[in-house]
């Protein structure tokens, strides 16, 4: 038997003050980053254009910029994307009366006129301001809806205190992941939002495995304080928690390294989310349940299967 972690007896619950401090610091930093620096929202949410073109030889970005200025498109942000031959042009939606979607055609025409080498149109994304606003609302709503249904499910399957604990852990994960995007000003687009929802699913997955063991141990361990039962549970599931996170991180690294530029942010969000989610299912979800004063009585099996709800005071 190969064992990375065998028969561990870490005192996780004893370290809960330390965890609380660490989590609080991370959350404060994340919130500050979100409030002060703000999210670098992509065109999906702000409306506007992203145009990616490929040159045969690396172009001089100043020339590209001035050709756009000459074409009456002065507000474009021009930067390299991944390689020196790839150029990404971003523009806010026009405020004058020009027909929005056609602007990308004028950008291409302007680029073609300023360049000797052939230009390959790789991608155009145009999102109208109205659509951007809707996607923003929908996105926020999606995260809240997912959280709501998860709370209901856990309440139904476990108990109220677990439900609160898991949601605290999820909010913790989401805030920190989003905070990292704000801190480093990494573009936040629709795929990142999808990744955040996947993080919610993953982190919960982890949390539930621990909760499941806590419930089982509360019922089977005759002796032991709640803190001891919880410690035992986290330790028993630790090996699994670490291995699953490891395999998930393996595939995510593959996605991050080989999946291409478009999927890069998506993979990054998941990597951060998985790491934070693993930490939170050990240190946040369980300690929150403990802090809420979980007792053996909360979890003793009831007469009828699936009637756990009866225990809610």
């Amino acid at each position, binding site marked *: *038997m*190969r064992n990375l972690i065998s*028969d561990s007896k870490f005192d996780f619950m004893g370290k809960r003050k330390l965890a609380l401090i660490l989590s609080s610091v991370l959350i404060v930093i994340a919130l500050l980053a979100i409030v002060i620096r703000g999210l670098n929202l992509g065109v999906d949410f702000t409306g506007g254009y992203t145009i990616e073109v490929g040159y045969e030889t690396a172009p001089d970005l100043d020339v590209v910029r001035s050709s756009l200025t000459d074409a009456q498109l002065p507000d474009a942000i021009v930067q390299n994307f991944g390689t020196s031959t790839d150029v990404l042009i971003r523009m806010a939606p026009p*405020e004058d*009366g020009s027909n929005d*979607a056609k602007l*990308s*055609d004028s950008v291409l025409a302007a680029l073609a006129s300023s360049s000797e080498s052939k230009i*390959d*149109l*790789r*991608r*155009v*994304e*145009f999102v109208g*301001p109205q*659509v951007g606003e809707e*996607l923003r609302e929908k*996105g926020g*709503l*999606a995260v809240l809806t*997912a959280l709501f*249904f998860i709370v209901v*499910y*856990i309440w139904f*399957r476990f108990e109220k205190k677990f439900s609160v604990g898991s949601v605290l852990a999820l909010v913790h994960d989401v805030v920190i992941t989003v905070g990292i995007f704000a801190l480093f000003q990494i573009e936040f687009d*629709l*795929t990142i939002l*999808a990744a955040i929802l*996947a993080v*919610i*699913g993953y982190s*919960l*997955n*982890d949390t*539930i*495995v621990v909760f*499941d063991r806590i419930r089982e141990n509360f019922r089977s361990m005759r002796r032991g304080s709640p803190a001891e039962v919880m410690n035992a549970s986290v330790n028993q*599931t630790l090996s*699994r928690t670490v*291995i*699953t996170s*490891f*395999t*998930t*991180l*393996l*595939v*995510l*690294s*593959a*996605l991050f*390294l*080989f*999946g*291409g530029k*478009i*999927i890069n942010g*998506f993979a990054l969000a*998941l990597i951060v989310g998985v790491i934070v989610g693993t930490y939170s299912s050990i240190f946040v979800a369980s300690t929150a349940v403990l802090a809420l004063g979980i007792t053996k009585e909360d979890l003793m099996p009831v007469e009828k299967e699936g009637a756990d709800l009866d225990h809610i005071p």
Partner: protein
Amino acid sequence: MTNVNPLWKILLLAAVVLSGALIALPNIFGSDPAVQVSGRNRDMSADVVQTVKAAIVDAGFENVEFREEPNKFLALFTNEDDQLKARDLVAKVIDKDVTTVALNLVDASPDWLRRISQPMFLGLDLRGGVHFLMEVDMDAALANAEERFLTDWRRETRSAGIRGTAIQVKDGSLSARFRKVEQRDQMLEKFQETGGDLVFRTREDGEYAFIEANLTEAAADVERKSALDQNIVTLRNRVNELGVSEPVIQQQGLERIVVQLPGVQDTAQAKDILGATATLEYRLVYGSYADWADAENGNVPAGARLYKMRDDGSHILLNRDIIVTGDQIKDASSGIDQQSGSPAVFVNLDGAGAKRMQAVTAENVGNPMAVVYSESRVDRRMVDGVEQRIVTKTESVINFATIRDVLSHRFQTTGLDMTEANTLSLLLRAGALKAPVYIVEERTIGPSLGKENIRQGFLSALVGLALVLVFMAWYYRVFGLVAGFALVVNVVLIIAVLSMLQATLTLPGIAGIVLTTGMAVDANVLIFERIREEIRSGASVQTAIASGYEKAFITIADANVTTLIAAVVLFSMGTGAIKGFAITLCIGILTSMFTAIFGSRVLINAIYGGKRSAALSI
């Protein structure tokens, strides 16, 4: 004896694995660039197929495969250069009015396999193409409906012999002004007979009496719905005219339409054609040169409207009432007018249009009739953070001529250049948009990026899978190999289900598969860790396996349900590519329950089941 597989379990696993592999198989063959010829509106004749085939064979392309399907003829090539050459070749030998030619990517798997299963669709981000989200201008749709009522009102007022009225849209309502209350009451009765969709009000103001009316909410809804439906039909026709294969044209929400055109690279042309509002109107000319000159100074008579001539910008008065609009044109083609040698559009009217044209021209032989070319453009502007739309309608008279004879179904119109005539006939054939549409979202992926996305998505999936397989085999040895097998089967099953659903694979979809690969082993990790615990606490090998699977099951189910919740929410709220991620995630979770729990158990049982003293390699 414990842990021995009943025969049905083995058969079930074998059946699922084999049929999954078979269904997923076509995806390995990929697709070939093809030229697709199909009949426009009606089936192609066998002659057309023969001509096209002969043209391609004569050109001497290598390794061409021909396929004949109902109203569709496909020629598959090995590379895109051949495909493009062949398209140009075919375009020369077919009659474009009845046949269309398009580029396509078609399933390259062998004949027998295609009868069993088809590969997944590749999303635009993987094959290149353009995605438009178009919004229908509903205000314009309602304005059109109001204009229809106004035309009816004017006609009825005139035929009742009432003069001195003003009938127009005023302050958001239809409004008719009369000099006398009796006239008003007389017409109100008339209007009410025909205007069932209107809510009427009356009002007196000094010397005038008014009828005011608004569309009922229900009628407005019907107008909006019909504008949306009509626009979808029109857009579909236009896309067909463009010669795009496998386009998607779908309603989204109450006032939007999604248009996806795989493989289209000339987005400028696509935008022009899709959003074009060019159409024709036929009107009688009003008065004489003297009246027109007078009108230039602002003296426009009540029944007339001032227009500009397209060629020299001079002014002309036309009757307010339209004889025939573009909607009533059933078919159109462009060509050369035999007499003048100038480009012409030949139009064919539908029944109602022909009847009206006949009636009007019969009454007006010797009078001039004009053809109005109208085009509207919608611009949007942000004013104080609120989006406003400005519709600019440009109308010009392309020609006018004396009616020499009674016209009915077929006639021709000159006054445009060749390109305009071509485009206009295309637009008339496809039908006019009932209300203007504008693009609120565009996503174009060039073919080079599409190919790169596929390559990178595929590579990352393979590398991820390989890493997990190696790690599992190293850590859990025989059990790890079993988990690896379950994982590979899981990926095959995801692809099989996607193929069966004919779902679209997108780049985030591939990411979903990759993520599932990482998460699917979780079930096996849970089970194996349980088995290890059981062994540590002294259980026999067989008991350890059985209770390991049993105890882990409920945990796995609980954990997966929550991920499923997140995935379902993502699916219901997401759009396009994000949906692709959600759907592969959902499918992956469900199939992993089967492979990781049921599949791995059957294998473990087959290896260790029933052996009393086996040492587990875990």
